[in-house]
């Protein structure tokens, strides 16, 4: 069961992993993130889109040496929400017997 106060968007394994990686790095490419999280292209795309639609991350597409490159970066809102999420987990940890 998920308490109401935990962010619904972040509270999903792949999305939580994406947010954790971006909280540590700020910006990261699609390929690198896929390698770190060990997820499929499709799975990562779907979850990244959800995060982007909710303003937690930004997705930028450009070309590097004529090859397409997708880069994810965390937004200010994303940083705030992720911090809040960790604080909520900490509260649960300390409040519950």
């Amino acid at each position, binding site marked *: *069961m*998920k*308490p109401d106060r*935990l962010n619904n968007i972040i509270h999903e*394994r792949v999305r*939580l*992993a994406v947010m*954790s*990686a*971006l*909280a*540590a*790095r*700020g*910006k*990261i490419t699609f390929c*690198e*993130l896929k390698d*770190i*999280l060990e997820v499929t292209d499709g799975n990562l795309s779907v979850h990244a889109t959800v995060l982007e639609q909710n303003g937690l991350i930004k997705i930028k597409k450009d070309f590097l040496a004529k090859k397409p490159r997708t880069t994810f970066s965390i937004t200010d809102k994303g940083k705030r929400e992720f911090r809040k999420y*960790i*604080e909520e*987990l*900490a509260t*649960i*940890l300390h409040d*519950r*017997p």
Partner: protein
Amino acid sequence: MEKAQAISDLEFIKKTMKASTRYTNIPPMGYLLSGWFGLAGPFYTWLYLGAEKVGDPARITFYDVVILAIAWLTILLAAAFSSAVFSVLRARRLGKSAWNSLVARMLGSQVPLLFAAGILTIAMAAAKQYSLIPGIWLISYGLVLFSLYFFTGKDHLIQSVIFLALGAASLFSPAQASLILLAAGFGATNLFFGIRGLLKEKEVYETGPAQ
């Protein structure tokens, strides 16, 4: 949510955050150790040469140059070795390989810059322009960090700007000041980012089960 689930989630967050920095991979302790080496170098140089030779580099002899070259090479190798050891240990803890194609590309891309820095250092020493050497080192390292930024994160960008600024200041400063700026770059800046890294890790760990 059960407490066990919260613990598991926090562990997952910590592990992912650490795994995502495995390409930068130098842990805070690596920075701290490099920072101490970075302070030791200028301090030793100052002690060895004395205030007179530091203030008037024209008095530096060939023998002094050889001794200082050995000292600085030792410091460089010690800092590189300790950073490598910490990185390997960190990668092992994460169950990942410390060496992969991206790391190889990252390091490979630095070879021309390091070569240029080495050649410029020798050229400056041959021309007895010793006071310019700290500036060259700071700027070269700033450029290395700037190119690493494209593989890593904004910490390297911030460090790069600091090193480039200190290097530029050093090139136009008196000899004594350039040694202080060298210590500020390789010493204080690395120590600052080491402490910052430790605090960042603590911030996440504080919520963990070990508390």
